[in-house]
């Protein structure tokens, strides 16, 4: 593929050397900028507290203490906080699929009266910076209108607002719009109701977009900080991020760093496993959103 630099320049002897130098420098820079900090955290966790506090820092640990990871798991009760985070993120994911998929299907294929008004009202919420809704949503969570329920310290305080996601509905609707109406018509003539059509016909062919929405949902919930910070004042109910921030000052640095590494591993593993979907979601999410 032709890019900025012409192929003939690249083929010339000078071009070949220039390319090699630039490639080498970029590679080195990327390793230093993006991989080295992760190496530093991994090895830092395995240094002794004295070594960690020493100036200048050691680049390779003098003594290895891999047991710090086990200590961190116990001292920070990571098992409990992992479970909390999984419940919060998993529930947010399920709520988004269960609520946004039928809504997008109805708006795309059933086209009810005032459907465009409803869609417009949903999309209008995209114009609001999230921060502007922080306080009023918090106040709403403490006392849901009509129901008079207080959702503070309940994972539903994350699940339900996460489902009010206009961007998901927009992404899903755009995908459903491309599914030919004839397919729906054929299902109808075969006697399938709309729910059956959605479940049996639409969902199986919508796997790519469902994967994108799922990953966006899980990653966003796992990374979120400010909302869980507000709605989980009970330290037993907090997510990993909120807990790590809370204990950061009191914990020995090596234990804290080990906890940080462990808390990041699921997201890194998820990324390595689903790169293609994550990168697809990235372009779907930012350029066309």
């Amino acid at each position, binding site marked *: 593929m032709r890019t900025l630099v012409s192929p003939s320049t690249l083929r010339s002897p000078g071009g070949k050397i220039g390319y090699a130098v630039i490639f080498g420098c970029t590679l080195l820079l990327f390793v230093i900028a993006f991989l080295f900090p992760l190496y530093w955290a991994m090895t830092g966790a395995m240094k002794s507290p004295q070594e960690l*506090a020493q100036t200048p820092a050691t680049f390779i640990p003098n003594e290895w203490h891999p047991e710090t990871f086990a200590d961190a798991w116990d001292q920070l009760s990571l098992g409990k906080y992992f479970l909390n985070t999984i419940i919060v993120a998993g529930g947010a994911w399920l709520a988004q699929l269960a609520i*946004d998929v039928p809504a997008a299907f109805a708006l795309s294929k059933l086209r*009810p009266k005032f459907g465009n008004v409803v869609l417009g009202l949903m999309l209008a919420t995209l114009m609001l910076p999230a921060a502007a809704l922080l306080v009023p949503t918090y106040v709403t969570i403490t006392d849901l209108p009509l129901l008079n329920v207080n959702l503070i310290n309940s994972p539903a305080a994350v699940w339900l607002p996460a489902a009010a996601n206009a961007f998901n509905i927009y992404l899903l609707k755009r995908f459903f719009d491309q599914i030919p109406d004839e397919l729906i018509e054929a299902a109808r003539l075969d006697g399938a109701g709309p729910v059956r059509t959605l479940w049996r016909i639409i969902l199986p062919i919508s796997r790519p977009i469902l994967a994108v929405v799922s990953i966006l949902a899980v990653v966003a919930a796992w990374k979120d900080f400010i909302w869980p910070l507000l709605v989980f004042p009970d330290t037993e109910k907090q997510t990993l991020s909120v807990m790590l921030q809370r204990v950061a000052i009191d914990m020995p640095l090596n234990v804290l760093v080990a906890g940080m590494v462990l808390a990041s591993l699921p997201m890194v593993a998820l990324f390595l496993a689903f790169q293609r979907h994550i990168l697809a979601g990235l372009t779907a999410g930012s350029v066309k959103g």
Partner: protein
Amino acid sequence: MSSHRSSSVLDWPATSSSRAGRPVASAAERRRNRLRRKLKENLTAYGLLCAALVVFALFSWYPIVRGVLLSFQQVDFVNPPSWVGFDNFTRLFEDPLFGVAWRNTLLFTVLALVFGFLVPFLTAVLLNELRHAKAFFRLAVYLPVMLPPVVTALMWKWFYDPGSGLFNSALGAVGLPGGQWLDSSDTSMLSLVFVSTWANMGSTTLIYLAALGTIPGELYEAAELDGAGMWKRLIHVTLPQTRFVLLVLLLLQVVATMQVFTEPYVMTGGGPDDSTVTVLLLLYRYAFVYNDFGSASALSLLLFVALGVFSALYVRVTRKADES
């Protein structure tokens, strides 16, 4: 919530009429059937929509209205809210931190644009030229994006440590004096921008890279035949061809960086000397430290007004891109 799932509502409306098999229906009957069918179709659609309508009503539409009302009320959660007119706004304007927070936030946004806009674009242009290890570059630059922001912030706080931190150790190793980083009000904001850029540049870089990949090679060839050097090709081919993506990400970034919270909250708590108090940090303090939800809402409203234009432009531009 499950009541709408009865089969009568969810049957396709047309099945009953096609099943009937009557040879000729009167015009009135047909009209009635069509009406019934339309009604059923709408009921089904709203059945599927109702959960979404409830969550949007409770967590988007109602809070929007509530937020505006709260801005003009005093709330203490014991007595019913009372109307106080513009008192909340007056209180904000009289707070010396109000101006500081806006200035800091603006500084953060401008610095984040300089770094977070330029660095990813140049990185993408560079990566687009490289023929080897493409997968590695993509993976490496995106890795920080996957880390929980709190982890990134805590990690960098430790790197910045003036004593045993990574930066001063590295500088010391090559004989350079260390910096105060987060501990000096001169460099604190810049240090936060660095972290934010490092953490977020992966997504912007890959979006630029995707945009660069769609530029037709003939354009570069034609420019080269016209005698345009590499710099001119960058200015006259690459930039115009990606200007749309650049605009979208510019708007997105302004909206995102004006809401910066995690980095200052976790890394500096607003200090030193209030040099990293941002609007959102001030908002957090008003609501959850001083329990003054009215003033916090008033500040949210101001933030919304400040960002509304950018958000509206962003939605418009992306919608337009979508149609074309």
